[in-house]
């Protein structure tokens, strides 16, 4: 299978005054379509920087990042915005739902910046909310939903434009462990259906829900493999 992500010799350095800090040093890896990858590492390891680059929120200082056939490293702000809109579905640690706005409107948000015809938006949003099991809570605002439910709204939002990859940044970091299992179950189900999922986490037992785990430390990949037995979400 052709890789959907090719990261080759990516480095990222931050200039803070006189000191140059290297967050990522010469990183290379590939992710194939349909994989479920966890990127693990302690805080300060560079995994957030990697997530920003994979999410087209930032560009590498050097090296290439090819996402679904497009070299993201060479794009400008507006082109990056388009890549994020069409190819990446974000799931954030803090959910990032619009306050005082219904679940349905939240899921429809990415379609505001896309060419989806107006009449198709509502059915699409309803379809994905049902898929994450919130068919009966579509009109609830985020304050009326539990953490797990809010994260499920966010997953529906990530799916709605049928992206090439789903990029989850500590998706269970802000929710109770019982609900975290639900989220993992949804990810495993989506993966089974063919979605490519990349999950950034620092919790080993969450990472073990993925098929492949990339360990990074001090800006370099220290381990990349599938040695562990994939944990099945209940």
């Amino acid at each position, binding site marked *: 299978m052709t890789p959907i992500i090719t990261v080759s010799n990516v480095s990222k350095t931050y200039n803070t005054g006189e000191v140059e800090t290297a967050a990522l040093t010469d990183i290379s890896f590939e992710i194939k379509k349909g994989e479920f990858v966890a990127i693990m590492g302690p805080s300060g390891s560079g995994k957030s920087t990697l997530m*920003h680059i994979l*999410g087209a*929120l*930032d560009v590498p200082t050097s090296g290439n990042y090819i996402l679904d056939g497009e070299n993201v490293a060479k794009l400008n*702000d*507006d082109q990056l*915005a*388009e890549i*994020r*809109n*069409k190819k990446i579905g*974000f799931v*954030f640690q803090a959910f*990032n739902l*619009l306050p*005082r706005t219904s679940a349905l409107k939240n899921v429809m*948000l*990415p379609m*505001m*910046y*896309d060419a989806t015809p*107006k009449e198709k938006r509502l059915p699409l949003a309803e379809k994905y909310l049902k898929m994450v099991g919130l068919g009966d809570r579509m009109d609830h605002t985020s304050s009326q939903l539990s953490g797990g439910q809010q994260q499920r709204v966010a997953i529906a*939002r990530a799916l709605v434009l049928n992206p090439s990859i789903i990029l989850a940044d500590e998706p269970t970091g802000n929710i109770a462990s019982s609900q975290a299992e639900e989220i993992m179950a949804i990810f495993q189900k989506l993966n089974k259906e063919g979605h490519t999922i990349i999950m950034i986490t620092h919790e080993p037992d969450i990472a073990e829900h993925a098929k492949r785990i990339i360990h990074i430390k001090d800006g370099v990949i220290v381990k990349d493999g599938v040695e562990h037995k994939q944990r099945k979400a209940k």
Partner: protein
Amino acid sequence: MEYTEIIEEASRTLTLNKLRTGLAMLGIIIGIGSVIALVSLGQGSQAAVTNQIQSLGANLLTVIPGSQRGGFIQGGAGSATTLTLDDAKAISSSSQVKDVLNVSPEYSRRTQITAGSKNTNTQVIGATATYSTVHKVSIAEGAFITEGDDVRQSKVAVLGPQVVTDLFGDGTNPIGESIRISGKSFKVVGITVSKGGTGFQNQDDIIYIPLSVSMKVLFGSTNLTSIAVEAKSASLMTSAENQIGYLLLDRHKISNPTDADFSIFSQNDILNTASSVTGTFTALLSGIAAISLIVGGIGIMNIMLVTVTERTREIGLRKALGAKKKNIIAQFLIESIILTFVGGVIGMFVGILASFIISRLINLPFTISAGSIFLAIGVSGAIGILFGWYPAQKAANLQPIEALRYE
């Protein structure tokens, strides 16, 4: 991303915080409202002044004595005693003056009037029968001064409605009653129709008595304070003015027109002066109101900057989900335009209402020009763009990573 959608979204966001939205709009409401009200009141008072000056008489020329030139001391205009009754007679009878219809010699002075226990101080005009024609004075009750009154030196008086109110009270009919002017007893024979009492001179606060009585009996003067002349038509005003000028120069034996001991001005001169004065005042007041509009605009900018800071995470999220710079700019710019535009429309209605009420209270004609409505709508929209631009730019330039991390 369609504009209807952004407008929908922006309106929804604005209604989420009604108090703040209302307060931000208030500045624009007050600004637009006061500009509209002041422009409207200015135009109203200009119309009132014009009406009033025109009500003083049609095609009217007024001759007043010029300043007295004697030695080194020069008196003010009107202080000279150079116009006589013979001058007035000459103007009406001379073959040299062809374009004149009516001539009204006048002697006016302020003095004390009493009727029973009440008294007032007002303008007493010594007038002939032609006065009412030249100055368009209409009689509500009784009759105006007649030629016979003047010849017989009858002690009769015609009162303006304001004088009637001051001396006899509202709704009374004082015809046949007697009043005392400077201590001498006069019989009231007529009341004039009100001409409206605003502006620099109250046309209703006047007492008319026969010219001969005023000059010979009351004040002992041989000179007139003015001669009012009605020209045959508006187009003959200038030639009438010239004819009168040359006749009087001749009679007063003055060869150089710059040495003239009288001056002639036409109604148009007064009209132009008065409207330029009210125009200046209107412009001045509108200018002050426009400052409040700028202050309102700064208020909008302030609120929009707060909004951008507050919604940093939302902006980050929108950018992460694919919003381009122009999408973010459009969103915030449209929010501020909605604020100022809705504020402007409300302000327009507030201004019209205020102007309507005030013009009723101070008895001015109520006028609203289409210009001021377009101004309100245009200016408020422009303020939205002008003061919303910087906050919108600031929002659009936020980096998504930093914006998402913002607490």
